[in-house]
C-alpha cells in the first residue's frame, strides 16, 4: 500500500462539447478518512470522482497522487453510478479483479466466499450477474471493488437503489473498511447518509467547489449561502 494517499488537483478543467462541466478546481484532498461529495444533479460529482481516479480526460490541469497514474489506480477501486456487470456469474464477477491481479485460485475462492457472505450474495454466486436486481447489482459492484483491498475507494451513489436495511448494512461495512485504513471518496444524495459517514464534505455546484469543510463545521455552519440553501432542502441550481 502506498503510504500517502493524498491527491492534489491543480487547475483541473473538464470540458465536453465546448461546455465546462468541471472546474477550474484547485483542491488538496485530505489524506485519510471519508470525503463526501454532495451537490445537485449535474453539478459534476461523477466527473470529479472520475477525474480523481484518472479515467476522465482532462482539458486542463492535473491530478497528482504523488505516484504515476497507473500505479495510483492500481491501489484504487471505483464503484460506478450505474453498476457495470460482466456478462458472467456473480462468482466470476468477483473473481475477475483478482485474476487480473494474478491471484491464485484457492486464495480467490476464499475471498469470493468471504465477500459474498459479507454483502449478502452468498446464495446467488452462480446466477448470471446481469439478471440481478438493481440493488443486488450495486452490492455486487461494491464487493467486487472491495475484494482487492483498495487503498482508496470511490463510490458514486452506492446506496441509490437500496432499502433501509441494506443501507444500514452497507454503511456499517463502509465504516469497517474505513477503520481498516481505506480512504473513501463518495457521492450521495442522501444528506442523512452524508452526516453519518462524512469526515469532510465537498459541496459542488456548477462544476466548482462551492464549499468545503470538515463534516462538523460544514453541517453546523456552511460558509456559502448556496450550501445553506442546499442543506435546508431548497432547490439550488
Amino acid at each position: 500500500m502506498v503510504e500517502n494517499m493524498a491527491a492534489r488537483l491543480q487547475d483541473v478543467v473538464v470540458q465536453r462539447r465546448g461546455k465546462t462541466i468541471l472546474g477550474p478546481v484547485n483542491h488538496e484532498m485530505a489524506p485519510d478518512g471519508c470525503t463526501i461529495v454532495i451537490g445537485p444533479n449535474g453539478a459534476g460529482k461523477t466527473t470529479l470522482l472520475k477525474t480523481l481516479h484518472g479515467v476522465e480526460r482532462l482539458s486542463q490541469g492535473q491530478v497528482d497522487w504523488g505516484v504515476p497514474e497507473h500505479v495510483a489506480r492500481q491501489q484504487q477501486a471505483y464503484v460506478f453510478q450505474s453498476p457495470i456487470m460482466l456478462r458472467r456469474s456473480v462468482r466470476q464477477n468477483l473473481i475477475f479483479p483478482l485474476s487480473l491481479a494474478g491471484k491464485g485460485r484457492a486464495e480467490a475462492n476464499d475471498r469470493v466466499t468471504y465477500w459474498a457472505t459479507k454483502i449478502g450474495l452468498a446464495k446467488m454466486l452462480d446466477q448470471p450477474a446481469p439478471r440481478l436486481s438493481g440493488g443486488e447489482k450495486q452490492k455486487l459492484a461494491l464487493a467486487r471493488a472491495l475484494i482487492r483491498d483498495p487503498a482508496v475507494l470511490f463510490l458514486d451513489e452506492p446506496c441509490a437503489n437500496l432499502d433501509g436495511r441494506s443501507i444500514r448494512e452497507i454503511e456499517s461495512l463502509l465504516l469497517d473498511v474505513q477503520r481498516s485504513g481505506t480512504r473513501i471518496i463518495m457521492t450521495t444524495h442522501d444528506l442523512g447518509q452524508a452526516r453519518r459517514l462524512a469526515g469532510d464534505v465537498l459541496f459542488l455546484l456548477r462544476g466548482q467547489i462551492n464549499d468545503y469543510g470538515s463534516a462538523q463545521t460544514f453541517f453546523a455552519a456552511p460558509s456559502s449561502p448556496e450550501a445553506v440553501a442546499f442543506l435546508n432542502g431548497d432547490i439550488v441550481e
Partner: protein
Amino acid sequence: MTDIWSGLQAAFWLLVTFDRDLVEITLRSLQVSLSALVIASIIALPLGTWLAIRRFRFRRAVIAVLNALMGLPPVVVGLIVYLLLSRSGPFGVLGLLFTPTAMIIAQVIIITPLIASITHQAMRELWAEYHDLLISLNTSNWQRIKTLIFDGRRALLTASLAGFGRAIGEVGAIMIVGGNIDHATRVLTTAIALETGKGDFALALGLGFVLIGLALVVNFGIHVLSRTEREGRW
C-alpha cells in the same frame, strides 16, 4: 410436374443410400467452406475486435472499406481472383487456378469482411458496456481483448456462422475460379447449377436438400445463440 415428382423421389433415394457422388460433393463443399471459415475467422475476429476498441487515425476509413467490401458481388471477386491466379497473372506460377485452394481464397475474400463487420458491431456494444470498468481496473490491452472475446463469444460464433452460411451457398466466384471440375472442384452449388442445366433434377434436388439442410442448421444455430444471449443464460 411428373419430372419434378420423379426427381424428388430419385433425390430422396440418393440421400438415403448415401450416393457416392452426392457424398463426395458434399464433403468437398464442407472442406472448402470450413477451410475458408477458419482462415477468415482468424483474420476477421481479432480485426473486428481491434476496430471496436482502438481509436486510431484511419479507423473510420477502415470500417467504411470493410462495409464496402461486404457488398462486393461474389462474381466480381471470382473474376479478380481468376485474373490474379491465371497463368499470366502475378500468382500464376503457383498453379492454383481450378483447385480447391483457389476456391478457398475466393471465399475467404468474400466472407472476411462480413465476419469482421458483425464482430465489430457486437464488440463495440460490449466495449461500450465494459469500457469504464476495464479502464478502472487498470487492464492491459491484451486483458481487454481477452475479456471482450470471452464474454462476446456467442456473438463471435454467430458472426462465424453467418460467414459459413454465406460461403457454403455461394456459387458465382467458386464457379469461376474452381471451374466446377468433376472429382476435383465440384461443390454443392456448382453441381446444382450444372445438373439443373443438364436436366438431371434427381442429383440437383438431392444436393439441394443437403444445402438446405446445412443452411437450416446454421440458421438454427444462430437463432439459439442469440436467444441464449438475450435471456442471459450462461
